[in-house]
């Protein structure tokens, strides 16, 4: 078994209005430091996982993300898996 570090990034689907992202964007603009746009606020879930191979680890992580970490109706996710 190999050990992997996993990062799952979850964000609201592009077509879904993200009021939290809008509020953060307004605040960033109030800082007066940058012209920014399209701010989205999501979540990061990190964990370690044991699997026999990288493909197997990726498969497991995708299943976890799809079934629990993200709600596919309103969110999309991306997965980063690295061998330790």
């Amino acid at each position, binding site marked *: 078994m190999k050990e992997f570090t996993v990062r799952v990034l979850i964000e609201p689907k592009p077509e879904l*209005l993200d009021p939290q992202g809008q509020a953060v964007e307004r605040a960033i603009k109030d800082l007066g430091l940058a012209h920014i746009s399209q701010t989205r606020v999501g979540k990061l879930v990190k964990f370690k996982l044991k699997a026999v191979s990288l493909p197997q680890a990726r498969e497991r992580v995708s299943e976890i993300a799809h079934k629990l970490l993200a709600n596919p109706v309103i969110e999309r996710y991306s997965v980063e898996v690295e061998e330790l």
Partner: protein
Amino acid sequence: MHAAVVVFPGSNCDLDAYYVLKDLLGIETTLLWYRERDLSEYDLILLPGGFAYGDYLRAGAIARFAPVVQALPEYIEKQRGLVLGICNGFQVLTEAGLLPGALAPNINRRFICKSVKLRVENAYTPFTQLCREGELLELPIAHGEGRYIASEETIERLKRNRQILFRYYEENPNGSLESIAGIMDETGTVFGMMPHPERNCERLLGLGEGLKIFQALAQALTPGPSPVITHGRGVAQAG
């Protein structure tokens, strides 16, 4: 008739629902711990409001893996009885895939706690049979994640099958698509709504309009002639 009110760690409207069923309507009611798997005794499973598992990750996301929720598909498949999800209970039912769509954070980013007007969109269901179509009910809402979202295709299907039972009237408080406040599944036995009928069942707390929903359930689940089809695919037959 025997009703079960499910108690998750973090439920906080369980006793209100229990009070309405047991004390106001005299229905045999059990507070059912979320670890239970056997639902065969119960004619009604009520998933109450609250914050099951602290709403960690997303509202309802973790509660859907609770044994009692895992037992629901079989309960529904067998058409054993009715399932009512109120507020957090509605969120659990969508997360579990037992109702379509999802409940996203309110459009104004705030937790909203106030009375709202609802329009009855379909009165030919076991949940709304004591209402008139187009009737307005005033019920409290209290949620941070109540913005109903679903694909265009799902919304069309909900409309076509008359699965939308309640819409917010005049004001859409949380930004829900189509002002949706409550929907039923395709079997006509599972219903989820964001407003809290159990919080307006007595004149002391308003006009008591919420009681109609519980009375309708009791009528649908009590043996004897009933004007409404409580089982089977009776959803589209209304009208």
